[in-house]
């Protein structure tokens, strides 16, 4: 029985043996094949690269995190530049069913060109053509309309072939710069282009601070590998020294003045001489910064974006303030020194005449300023000698950058003895503002020294920087002390008296101000023009407690060529607005309140 069972068992074993062997062989061959395939893949560089590419495509994506650009506020916290959500509209080519519907919808809703969209949507999807951007900076309202239409079309036709379909149209939100005040302050703010780079003004000067530091990182699609995004600080925000109300008022004043006097352009700069803070900087042309791409054409033909800092011009008689300051401070003359004006002065072979060609006889220094005598100024410059005169002009910052924290500043031009194009006659002409060029801000800064007891503060437009949860105030910087406090006070008094005696159009009811007009002839390749001028006025006040310096410049006014007739009334108008906005009581009220 047992032997029979054993035989049966052996037969059974033999019967199944080949099957075991077959299974064993298969089980052995399979790992060998797997190992072979592994080796084959690993040793074929093209294959390795292909798989690596596939893996990187489907396992995650490289993402650049761009921190929101910092905001820009005026000194009271009104937003001047912020961020708003806009949308990029694109087409996922592999999902497109009907390019015609897409082109029709996008041209109707977004105002895009039909052919452009149709061509983009008709592209064959491939490794090199996956997605096409068709519109940028699309508003939320437009996207809402597009989404509604897409839903309706989808509901009506269910994406059937050859039927209308908006499949493939996609949109992504992103932050873009917005300027709530539109044109106001556009010249000083500058703008940010689509790539997030600042151009002109504060946006360019502080671009690195405002933009923050973008970071590129790998973002895995695998939820098991999800990581918290790195803590990226937002771009720094800026609080400007600009007062929105004053800026708006000055822009209104200059716009009205340009219209009234038919000037080519106009500029008003308002500076606090005690700190160098720029309270307003109004100039033309301005653009709506939200539409900068369409409006930049206004700056064609070399028109500077911000004339106040970028356009140097021959200022004319406002420059006499600096010449007189130098003459008084160097001890060359006293306010009561008498000069006998014969109406002509020869220097370096050139004859200097007064603005009206007349002789004004004996004049003290106040008279020289009151009548704006070129002959007197040329005499002062020669009395000082060239070295003293030019040393003072350089100390006032003429021919140098003011150091204002805005992009695009022009240093102007001050020819110096020893320069190839400097002649002896230049000493005479420079003394009354001819042959020397400066920007409105340079002039305002230099004359701030006269208004601020001889101390010249560096002009600045950023009051403080908000970064990483702290607000850092910008320190005031003294850029020089070109004259003594006594000279500054004497000159201020002389120029206040000048305006009062002349009953100037610049006088402001209730407020004692000092100032000087300027009429600069415009140089051309054929000499100076007399029928087209630069009309300027610089003034400061109130004289007993100086709070502002206002510089006015009208380019080529048509109503009159004289600064006293064109720019002086603009100064008065500007100051009348300014004192109200600064809550500055009239002199008598202030004296009463202070118990004087």
């Amino acid at each position, binding site marked *: 029985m047992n032997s029979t069972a054993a035989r049966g068992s052996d037969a059974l074993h033999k019967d199944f043996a080949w099957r075991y062997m077959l299974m064993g062989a298969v089980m052995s061959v399979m790992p060998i094949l797997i190992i072979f395939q592994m080796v084959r893949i690993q040793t074929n560089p093209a294959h390795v690269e292909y798989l690596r590419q596939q893996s990187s495509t489907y396992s995650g994506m490289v993402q650049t995190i761009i921190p*929101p650009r910092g905001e820009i506020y005026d000194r*009271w916290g009104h937003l001047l530049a912020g961020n708003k959500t806009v949308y990029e509209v694109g087409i996922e080519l592999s999902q497109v069913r009907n390019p015609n519907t897409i082109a029709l919808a996008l041209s109707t809703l977004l105002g895009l060109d039909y052919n452009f969209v149709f061509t983009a949507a008709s592209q064959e999807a491939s490794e090199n053509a996956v997605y096409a951007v068709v519109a940028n900076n699309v508003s939320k309202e437009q996207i809402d309309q597009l989404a509604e239409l897409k839903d309706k079309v989808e509901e009506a036709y269910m994406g059937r072939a050859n039927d209308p379909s908006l499949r493939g149209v996609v949109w992504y*939100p992103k932050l873009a710069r917005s300027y709530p005040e539109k044109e106001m302050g556009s010249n000083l703010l500058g703008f940010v282009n689509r790539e997030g780079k600042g151009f002109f003004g504060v946006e360019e000067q502080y671009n690195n601070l405002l933009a923050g530091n973008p970071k590129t990182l790998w973002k895995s699609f695998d939820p098991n590998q999800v990581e918290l995004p790195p803590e990226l600080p937002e771009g720094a925000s800026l609080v400007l020294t600009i007062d929105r109300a004053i800026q708006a008022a000055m822009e209104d004043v200059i716009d009205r003045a340009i219209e009234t006097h038919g000037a080519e352009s106009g500029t008003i700069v308002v500076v606090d001489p005690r700190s160098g803070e720029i309270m307003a900087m109004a100039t033309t042309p301005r653009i709506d910064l939200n539409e900068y791409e369409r409006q930049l054409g206004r700056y064609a033909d070399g028109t500077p974006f911000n004339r106040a800092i970028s356009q140097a011009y021959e200022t004319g008689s406002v420059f006499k303030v600096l010449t007189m300051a130098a003459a008084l401070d160097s001890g060359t003359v006293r306010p009561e020194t008498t000069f006998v004006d014969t109406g002509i002065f020869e220097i370096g072979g050139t004859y200097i005449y007064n603005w009206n060609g007349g002789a004004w006889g004996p004049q003290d220094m106040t008279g020289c300023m009151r009548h704006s005598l070129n002959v007197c100024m040329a005499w002062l410059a020669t009395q000082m000698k060239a070295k003293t005169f030019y040393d003072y002009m350089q100390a006032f910052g003429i021919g140098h950058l003011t150091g204002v924290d805005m992009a695009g500043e022009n240093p102007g031009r001050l020819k110096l003895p020893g320069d190839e194009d400097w002649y002896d006659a230049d000493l005479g002409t420079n003394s009354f503002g001819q042959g020397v060029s400066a920007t409105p801000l340079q002039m305002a800064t230099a004359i701030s020294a006269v208004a601020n007891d001889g101390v010249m503060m560096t002009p600045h437009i950023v009051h403080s920087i908000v970064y990483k949860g702290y607000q850092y105030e910008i320190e005031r910087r003294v850029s020089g002390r070109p004259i003594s406090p006594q000279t500054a006070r004497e000159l201020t008094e002389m120029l206040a008296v000048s305006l009062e005696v002349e009953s100037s159009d610049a006088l402001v009811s209730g407020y004692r101000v000092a100032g000087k007009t300027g009429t600069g002839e415009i140089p051309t390749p054929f000499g100076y023009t007399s029928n087209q001028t630069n009309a300027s006025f610089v003034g400061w006040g109130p004289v007993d407690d100086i709070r502002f310096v206002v510089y006015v410049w009208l380019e080529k006014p048509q109503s009159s060529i004289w600064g006293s007739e064109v720019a002086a009334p603009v100064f008065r108008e500007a100051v009348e607005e300014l004192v109200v906005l600064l809550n500055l009581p009239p002199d008598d009220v202030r004296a009463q309140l202070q118990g004087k």
Partner: protein
Amino acid sequence: MDRVQSLTQAYSQAPWRKQLQMMGLFLLVVVFAAIVAGIYLSVTARAAEIGRQIQSLQSKIEDVEQTNSDLMSQLAFITSAEQMRSRALSMGFRPIELAEPVFLPVPEYVERQPVILAPAPAPVVPSTPPLPAEYTESLFVWLQRQIDRSTFLFFEVQE
């Protein structure tokens, strides 16, 4: 020889028992592996779910930040100087004239200051670790302090 064989046979386990043991062992391994796999799957699934939640929350944070910026801009647009002026004019207000303001003395009046959006950074004070009193006091003072402390503790315990 036969005795040895019979002894071996007597004490050896029946084949079915051996098979049962083998199967039991195999099943034990399978069950253990299944438990480990189950726990692994459960933990992985939870981690994946939380990962998805984090991704979703990150996306929400971005949305909220964008909405916030957007609303700030909208607010600034509707309170811009031009808008406020036209609103004021439509409500019957007019710009004030130079002679119209009335100024009154206000005791303790503080002039309007520029906006403060964040605190100023704290001044940096170099920190020096305080020296223990033992390094600065004389032996007599130290002794006095010890006595005072002991006396204080003694009275405190008594109370």
